[in-house]
């Protein structure tokens, strides 16, 4: 095969991937602006379904709760994840390797299993279902993402800078806040955005851990679909996709996927 045909094949392949990834999303986004409730064509533009969202108390309160939970999770996961990354960078803790490996199951184990395990465990220790359980679950899921991104940024940090700061009389806290954190800030911001996205988009763990009638947006969407489909779901889903992709674009910009900026 010539290079030209290879290049063409490559492009076709890439095109197919993008098509199957984004065509359903684009169709859904388009339908959210279609006046017909039954996906009838021809397409007639309308913002009716977006307007209806505003009067749907259930969706609004679930959206509010999702944002609120995602914010709390972002703060907790980013703080804990950054602290863990700095600790793993700075100290030779015994069993450091094992510890680093142990932080990955939330990425590797299916969420369904994690969710079931958490539900059983939380009932066992008396936390049960509800918002605190959801927050704890989300933090556990988001933590490894923060650690991975912040650790990647720390790999470009010159540890001698910490020694220099100490030699100038700075204690551990000052060294961290004045020297280390400013350098890894892009990583911390990116990690926080990932944490927000993990929490905001989370379905399985939220479904298992939230109480009926007191759910997050993805869970509400799922239960609504089971009752019957309305284009309102298209509208809210389109908004979620826009927000999530916006966050990912920001995260990618800040972290540059772990590389030097």
């Amino acid at each position: 095969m010539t290079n030209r045909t290879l290049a063409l094949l490559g492009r076709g392949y890439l095109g197919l991937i993008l098509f199957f990834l984004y065509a359903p999303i684009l169709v859904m986004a388009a339908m959210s602006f279609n006046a017909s409730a039954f996906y009838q064509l021809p397409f007639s533009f309308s913002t009716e379904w977006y307007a209806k969202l505003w009067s749907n108390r259930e969706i609004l309160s679930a959206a509010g709760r999702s944002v609120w939970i995602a914010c709390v999770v972002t703060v907790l996961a980013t703080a804990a994840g950054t602290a863990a990354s700095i600790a793993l960078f700075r100290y030779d803790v015994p069993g450091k390797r094992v510890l680093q490996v142990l932080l990955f199951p939330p990425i590797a184990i299916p969420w369904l299993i994690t969710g079931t395990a958490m539900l059983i465990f939380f009932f066992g220790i008396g936390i049960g279902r509800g918002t605190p359980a959801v927050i704890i679950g989300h933090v556990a899921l988001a933590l490894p993402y923060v650690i991975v991104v912040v650790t990647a940024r720390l790999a470009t940090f010159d540890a001698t800078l910490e020694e220099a700061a100490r030699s100038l009389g700075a204690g551990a806290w000052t060294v961290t806040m004045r020297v280390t954190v400013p350098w890894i800030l892009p990583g911390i911001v990116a990690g926080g955005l990932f944490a927000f996205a993990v929490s905001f988009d989370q379905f399985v763990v939220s479904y298992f851990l939230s109480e009926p009638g007191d759910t997050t947006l993805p869970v509400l969407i799922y239960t609504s679909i089971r009752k019957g489909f309305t284009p309102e779901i298209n509208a809210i889903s389109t908004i979620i996709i826009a927000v999530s992709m916006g966050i990912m674009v920001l995260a990618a910009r800040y972290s540059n996927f772990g590389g030097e900026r």
Partner: protein
Amino acid sequence: MAQVRVEGLTKTYGGARALDAVSLSFPDGGFFGLLGPSGSGKTTLLRAIAGFVVPDAGRVFIGDAPVENVPVEAREIGMVFQNYALFPNMTVAQNVAFGLEVRKVAAAERARRVAEALELVQLGPFGARKTNELSGGQRQRVAMARAIVTRPRVLLLDEPLSALDKALRVDMQIELKRIQREVGITTIFVTHDQEEALTLSDRIGILKDGRLVRHGPPREVYDDPRDAFTARFLGEANLISGVPEAGGLRLPDGGLIAGARTATVAVRPENLRISLCEPQGPVRLRARLRQRIFAGAMGTCVLDWRGEALKAVGRDRDFADLPGEGEVWLTWDADDTIALEG
């Protein structure tokens, strides 16, 4: 300013002894050079004084107070790192001000002292610059200003000039010496460059395999190195071995180095003289000239004496009459024979 002292300092990494019972006194206000090949323990010693390395055994004193249990940040030291370690998120002035801020020095006083320190290192107008806009030599000066602005009790320099190119290094040596004289801080610096150690230091210490081999004023150590390692590490040395007897050192080729009492002696290359006809002096060797190397004003002759490589250094015109290769006579003044122990 303070005298620094270490006693019986020992540090082991894995199985390797980085420091082996090192005891040494660094005089108040002096400029002390720690010299040795890589892996000799010189950096470990410096870092133990700074507090970054916790010794397995031994004591460190700054002033008269033991500091083994004092963390780095409370030891009142100034340190210049090999890569300068300037804070990239701060300007030149902010870098220099860092130590004063940490010590909660008032803003006006801080500004005054930062300006003073930058003036001292001749970077007065550079305060607002970003550190990545500076040349290597300028970074070195900022690192120096940052380290001395807090008026530390001791200044520690870890190969401070090794990242600079040769010409700049020589300028900075003079500069470093001037700054140290002006502030008068007890300074300890680590280098693997013997010329740098000789130029800068009032006293030097030579380490090998974690042990302190020799210490003293540079000239004294250079003139009387006492052992083969020091003789070869500090400057260059031609080693000549034989059997000591009543009149001197009997050489395997039958010659005699009169007055020498040890089995091995050293002669500095600059003290060797080469001639084509047999010299009259008491010390003479028959050797083979292998190569003449021209290096501008100075020249080097590589010689072979009974399989041992010897070296003579001198002005190139002193060697002008010599052939490119062939049998020659070597001689030197009896005073220039250096006795070596062991």
